[in-house]
C-alpha cells in the first residue's frame, strides 16, 4: 500500500525522499523526454539531420498520413500483433503441462529444458531460421513440409482456394523471396513459440493456486480440460492480460527482427515493412529526419491510444469479455445455494468411482493423458531444440562438410572453429557483458530508490511524476532514435560504451520502477514504523528494511533487464561504429553478412553469444521464479 500523503508544509521533514527519485528523473529527462521533445520539434521541419532545416508546419504529418506505405506498414504490424497474441497460447499450454507434472523433479527438469533453447538471443534464432529453415532450395522447412506430405496439402489448398500459385507442385516455396509468403515467414519463425518468460510467469502464477482447489475438482470429477478452463485459466488471466499488453506494444515498437529477417527494404516488394522500419529507412537511408521524427510521434500516439484501449478493456469493472469463473468456484464458494446440488453430484461421483470398471477406465485415462502430456512436451522440446542442435553441430564442421551434410554430425570434428570464433567474438562478448552488467546494476539501484520514493509517501508532485514515468512505458524508444542519436552526438557519447549503458539504464527504469514500486508498497508498514521509531532516516530504512527483502524481486527484474540489454542491437547498430566497441549482437549481424560464410566459426560465434545468457538464466532461475511468485509481475 502506498504511504500517506505529505503536505507541502511537511516537505522539510521528508525532502530527502526527492533525492531517491532524482537520478531517475535526470536519466529519463535527458535520454527519453529530451529526445521526444526534440522529435516533436523537428517533426515540423524539413530536416536532413545536418545543414538543411526548413520549417514546413504540418507537411510531414500530412505527407505521412497520405502515404500508403505508412498505412500498409500498420496493416503488417497489426497482422503480426494478432499472430503474436495467438503465439502466446503454446507458452500457456506448456506451462500448464509442466505444472500438472506430479513430480517436482520432472517439473524442474522440464523448466530447465524449456529455458535453455528459449533464452537463445532472438537475433541468433532469426539468423538460424533465415539460413537453415527458410532457404528455398534446401531449407528444413520445405524439407519438413515435403517429408510429411504437408506440401501436397498446401498445393491442394492453393488450388482449391486460388491462392495464386504460392504452392505449386514440384516447386519449393520461397519463404523469404515471395512477397506473399514473407509475412507468413515472419509469423512462423521461432516455432514452437514457447517464450521462456511467458512460461515462467505462467508457472509462477499456477504455483499460487491452492492444492485444495485441485482436490475439490478431483472429488467433483472435473475433467483435465475443465480444470484448465475453469480453474487454471481464470486464475492466471491477470498475467495473460499483462503479457498481452507487452506483446502488442512490443510488436508495434519492434524493427530489429524484421530488419534481420528481411533487410532494410522490408523484403521483396517491401511487404514486410513495419512502421519502425519505415521510420529507420526514412531517417538513415533517405535522410528525411524531420519526416522520420513525425513517424516517431505518430507511432507513440498510436501506442498510447492502444494501451488506453487495452487498459479499458481489461478493467474488471468494464471488461467486455470477462472470463466467467468455473463451476466449482461458483457452486462451492460464490453461490451457497448450489452447495446442496454440488454435494449430491459429489456423492454420485464417489459412487461411480467405487465401481471397478470405472476405476479401470479412470486409470487408463490417467495413463493416456500422462503419456500424451509428456509426448506433447517432448515434441515441443525437440522442435525448440532444433536451432540449438543445428548451431552446435555446424559449429564443428568445415564448409565442405556443411555443404555435404548440413544437419548431421560429421567427422573429423573441427574444434578450431571455436578458437577462431572466440578470437572474433571475444572482445564483443566482453563489451556486451560490461554494458549489460553495468546498466543492469545502475537500473536496479536507481529504480529501487525511485520505487521507494513512489511507494513510501505521497510527496507533492508524486502523481505528476508517476504519470510522467507511466507515459514512458508506452513511448517506443525507437521513435526517438533520431533525436537520441543527435543528443549522444552533442554529448560526445557516440561510439562509446557509456552511451549504451546510460541509455540502457534510462530505458530500463520505467518497467523496473513499475514492478518494484508494487513490491515496496506491499512491505508491511509496521516494519517502516519500527525503523522510524528506532530513528532510521529514509536512507537507513531503505538499507535495513527494503534492501534485505527485495533480493528475489531484484533478481527477477535484473535478469529481465540483463537479457533485454544483451539482445539489443538496433541502438548499438546506430550508435557504435568502432569495431572495438561493438556489442556481440552487432558483431553477429556483421559476421552473418560475410560473402563467403565460414559456417563453422559463424555457428560457434552464435553459440558463444548464447552461452552467457543461458548460464545466467539457469543460475538465476530459482531466484527469478521466486521473484515472480512474490509478485514481480502482478496480473
Amino acid at each position, binding site marked *: 500500500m502506498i504511504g500517506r500523503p505529505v503536505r507541502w508544509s511537511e516537505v522539510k521533514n521528508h525532502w530527502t525522499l526527492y533525492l531517491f527519485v532524482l537520478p531517475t528523473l535526470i536519466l529519463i529527462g535527458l535520454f527519453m523526454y529530451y529526445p521526444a521533445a526534440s522529435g516533436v520539434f523537428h517533426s515540423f521541419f524539413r530536416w*536532413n539531420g*545536418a*545543414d*538543411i532545416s526548413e520549417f514546413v508546419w504540418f507537411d510531414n504529418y500530412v505527407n505521412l498520413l497520405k502515404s500508403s506505405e505508412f498505412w500498409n506498414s500498420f496493416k503488417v504490424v497489426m497482422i503480426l500483433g494478432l499472430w503474436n497474441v495467438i503465439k502466446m497460447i503454446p507458452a500457456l499450454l506448456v506451462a500448464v503441462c509442466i505444472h500438472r507434472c506430479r513430480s517436482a523433479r520432472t517439473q524442474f527438469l522440464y523448466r530447465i529444458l524449456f529455458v535453455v533453447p528459449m533464452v537463445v538471443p532472438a537475433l541468433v534464432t532469426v539468423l538460424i531460421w533465415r539460413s537453415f529453415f*527458410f532457404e*528455398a*532450395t534446401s531449407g528444413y522447412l520445405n524439407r519438413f513440409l515435403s517429408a510429411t506430405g504437408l506440401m501436397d496439402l498446401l498445393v491442394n489448398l492453393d488450388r482449391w482456394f486460388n491462392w495464386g500459385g504460392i504452392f505449386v507442385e514440384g*516447386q*519449393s*516455396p*520461397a519463404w*523469404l*523471396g*515471395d*512477397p*506473399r509468403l514473407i509475412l507468413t515467414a515472419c509469423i512462423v519463425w521461432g516455432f514452437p513459440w514457447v517464450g521462456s518468460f511467458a512460461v515462467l510467469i505462467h508457472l509462477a502464477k499456477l504455483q499460487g493456486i491452492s492444492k485444495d482447489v485441485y482436490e475439490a475438482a478431483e472429488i467433483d470429477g472435473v475433467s483435465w480440460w475443465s480444470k484448465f478452463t475453469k480453474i487454471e485459466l481464470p486464475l492466471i488471466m491477470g498475467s495473460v492480460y499483462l503479457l498481452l499488453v507487452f506483446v502488442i506494444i512490443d510488436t508495434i515498437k519492434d524493427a530489429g527482427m524484421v530488419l534481420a529477417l528481411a*533487410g*532494410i*527494404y522490408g*523484403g*521483396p*516488394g*517491401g511487404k514486410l515493412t513495419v512502421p519502425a522500419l519505415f521510420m*529507420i529507412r526514412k531517417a*538513415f*537511408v*533517405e*535522410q528525411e529526419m524531420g519526416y522520420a521524427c513525425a513517424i516517431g510521434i505518430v507511432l507513440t500516439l498510436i501506442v498510447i491510444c492502444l494501451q488506453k484501449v487495452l487498459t479499458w478493456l481489461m478493467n474488471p469493472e468494464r471488461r467486455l469479455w470477462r472470463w466467467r469463473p468455473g463451476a466449482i468456484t461458483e457452486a462451492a464458494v460464490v453461490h451457497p445455494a448450489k452447495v446442496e446440488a454440488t454435494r449430491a453430484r459429489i456423492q454420485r461421483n464417489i459412487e461411480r468411482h467405487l465401481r471397478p470398471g470405472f476405476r479401470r477406465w479412470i486409470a487408463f485415462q490417467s495413463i493416456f493423458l500422462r503419456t500424451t502430456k509428456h509426448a506433447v512436451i517432448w515434441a515441443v522440446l525437440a522442435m525448440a531444440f532444433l536451432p540449438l542442435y543445428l548451431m552446435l553441430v555446424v559449429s564443428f564442421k568445415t*564448409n565442405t562438410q556443411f*555443404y555435404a551434410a548440413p544437419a548431421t554430425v560429421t567427422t573429423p570434428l573441427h574444434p578450431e572453429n571455436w578458437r577462431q570464433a572466440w578470437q572474433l567474438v*571475444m*572482445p564483443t562478448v*566482453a563489451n*556486451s*557483458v*560490461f554494458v549489460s*552488467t553495468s546498466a543492469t546494476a545502475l537500473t536496479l539501484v536507481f529504480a529501487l530508490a525511485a520505487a521507494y520514493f513512489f511507494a513510501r509517501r505521497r510527496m507533492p508532485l508524486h502523481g505528476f511524476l508517476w504519470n510522467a514515468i507511466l507515459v514512458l512505458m508506452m513511448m517506443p524508444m525507437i521513435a526517438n532514435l533520431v533525436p537520441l*542519436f543527435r543528443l549522444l*552526438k552533442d554529448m560526445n557519447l*557516440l*561510439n562509446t*560504451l557509456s552511451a549504451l549503458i546510460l541509455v540502457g539504464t534510462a530505458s530500463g527504469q520505467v518497467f523496473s520502477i513499475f514492478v518494484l514500486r508494487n513490491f515496496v508498497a506491499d512491505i508491511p508498514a509496521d516494519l517502516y514504523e519500527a525503523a522510524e521509531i528506532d530513528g532510521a532516516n529514509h536512507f537507513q530504512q531503505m538499507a535495513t528494511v527494503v534492501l534485505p527483502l527485495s533480493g528475489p524481486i531484484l*533478481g527477477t527484474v535484473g535478469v529481465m533487464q540483463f537479457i533485454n540489454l544483451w539482445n539489443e542491437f538496433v541502438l548499438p*547498430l546506430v*550508435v557504435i*561504429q*568502432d*569495431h572495438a566497441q561493438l556489442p556481440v549482437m552487432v558483431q553477429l*549481424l*556483421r559476421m*552473418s*553478412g*560475410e*560473402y*563467403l*560464410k565460414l559456417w563453422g566459426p559463424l555457428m560457434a560465434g552464435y553459440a558463444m553469444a548464447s552461452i*552467457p545468457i543461458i548460464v*545466467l538464466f539457469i*543460475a*538465476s532461475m530459482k531466484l527469478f521464479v521466486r521473484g515472480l511468485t512474490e509478485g514481480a509481475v502482478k496480473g
Partner: protein
Amino acid sequence: MIARAWSWFTNRFAILVVIAAFIWSSVTIISHRRQAIPPGVKTVLRIGHWQLEGGVREAFNAMIAEYQELHPDVMIVQDAIPESTYGQWFTTQLMGGTAPDMIQVGLGVPYNVLLGFYHRYFLPLSMQVNQPNPYNRGSDFETMPWRQTYKDAMRRSYIEELQEYMTIPLSQFGSRIFYNKDLLKSLTGLEEPPADFRTFLAACEAIQAQRLPDGKAYVPIASSAYHITNWEAFMCAPLTFGAVREADFNRDGYVGVDELYYAIKTGRIDFDAPPFEASFRMLRTLTNYFQTGFSGLGRDEAVMLFAQQRAVFIISGTWEAGSLEEQARDHFELGIMDFPYPTKDDPEYGNIIEGPRYEAPASNFNFAVTRTSKNPEAAIDFLQFLSSRAGNEKMNGIIGWIPAIKGTSVSRLMSAFEPHLEGTYSSMPVTVGGETIIKWTQLTSLFQIGQIDYEEMVRQYKPLYLDKGGLELIEIQRNRRRALIRDEQFVTGYRHRALMATGDELQSRMIKYRQMVAGRLINRELGNEAARTWAQANADTPAPYSFTPEVLAKIRARLTNAEPENTR
C-alpha cells in the same frame, strides 16, 4: 559447515557468476584498449569499406604493414562492414562525426543524398590529384599529376555537380559470367560456353532438365537479390539504348536522370517504349532459370549454391573472382565467359539490340577523405601509397583484382575482364532519389518473381515517379546550387591571382579565370536553362537526333563543300 558453505554458494551462485563475468569483461576491455595503440604511435588512421570478399582485408593488412614500416608513427585500422548494413553505417558515421578518416563511397545511399554528403562530409581532392604522387618518385610517373597515372585519368572521381575530384579509386572492376566448366560439359555437352542469347537459353533449358542425386533439378543460374541487379545492368540494360534518340536532349550520347524525367513528363517517350519493355521481357526470361526464391536470398547464399555445384552459371565480377576460384579449387574447373547478348538475327531482340554494354575502363573501389579526419594529410598520403604504381599492383595482386594504375600487370584470370570499349549505354535511369528508388526497388522485386507484369509495375510506378521524381530532381538542383557560394569564392581566388599576375603569367591566369567562370558559374546556369527548355518540350518537338529536311540539306551542302578542303 560444508553444507552451510555449499548452501551459501548455491544461493549466491547467480550473483557470483555475474561478478566474475563483469571482472573478466572489464579486464578484457582494458587490456584490449592498451593493446589498441602501441607505444610510439602518433597518428591513428581508420579506413572503412564494404569489400568483404576473400583477400581484400588481407591485402589491406599487408599494405598497412608495409606502410607502417615506412611510417612507424602511423597506425592504420580497417573497418570491414557487410554490404547489408553498410548504407546505414555509412550515414550514421558521417552524421555523427565519427566516420573513419578514409571511407569507401558508392553504396547504400541514393545519389542525390550522396551529393549532399560530398558537400558536407568530404574533402575535395582536386588540388592533390593535380600534383604528382610522391610514392611514384623514381619512376616515369615522377612528374606526372596523380590523376594522370590512372588508366581512366580518375574520370569517375570527378563529381560534375561539385566540379571537384572527391574520391581516390584503387581498382578497376568488371563483370562477367562465371561458370562450372565440368557441369556445363556433363549436363549440356558443351565444351565452350554459349556465345549468344539463344544458345545460352538452350543451355539453361538443358541444365534445368537434369536432376541432382537427391532428385532435385539443377539450377542453371545461381542468383539472389544482389545478382539480379547485375543481370539487369549488364545483360538487359543495353536493350534500352534506343531511348537515347528521344531523351538525350543535350546530345551527349547518354540519357541522364533529368533528361528521362522530362522526356516522360512531356510525353516524348513512355515506359511502354519497345526498348524499355524488351529489357524487362529479357529479365523475366532469365529469371525462369534462377533458383526458386532468389529474390529473398543474399549474395552469399547464391555463391553457396554455385559452390555446392548445384548451379552452373553465376554473374559476378572481378571483386569476387578470387573467392570463387578458391571455392572451386579441387572441386571443379571455373570458367569465365562474356555476356551472351542477342545477335542481330535474334527473332525477339534482334531489331532492338544495338551492341553490347559499353564498359568504360573506369576505376572503382573509391575512397573519400572525411572532413572530420584529424589527420587528412596522413590519410591522403596513405591513399597515395596505395595508388602508387608499385603499391597498387601489389595490393590488387594480393586480392586478385585489376589495378587502377597504368603500367601495372594483370593476372591471367583477370584478363577475361578486358572491357568492351565499343557498345551502348543503359538509357533507362528511372529512379531519381530516395522515394523513387525505394518504390522502384520494391516493384521490380515483385516483377522479377512474376508477381506483377511490366504493365502493372508501370501503372503503379508512373504516378509516383511523375510526382515525387520531380521533387527529388529539385532536391538535386538544390544540392548543385549549394556549391555556388564555394564556386564564387573559388573563382574570386582565381580572379585575384590573375589580377595580381604580371608578364607571361597574366595571359595564362586570365584564361584560367575565364574558364573557371564559364565552367563553374555560367555553364551550370545554362544547364538549368536547358532543363527548363526540356521541361517545355513535347511529343511534337523534333527528337534530339532528328533533323528537318532543310537542316539535313544544309548539312549535306556544307559537307559537300567542305569535302575538297578536307581532302586537301
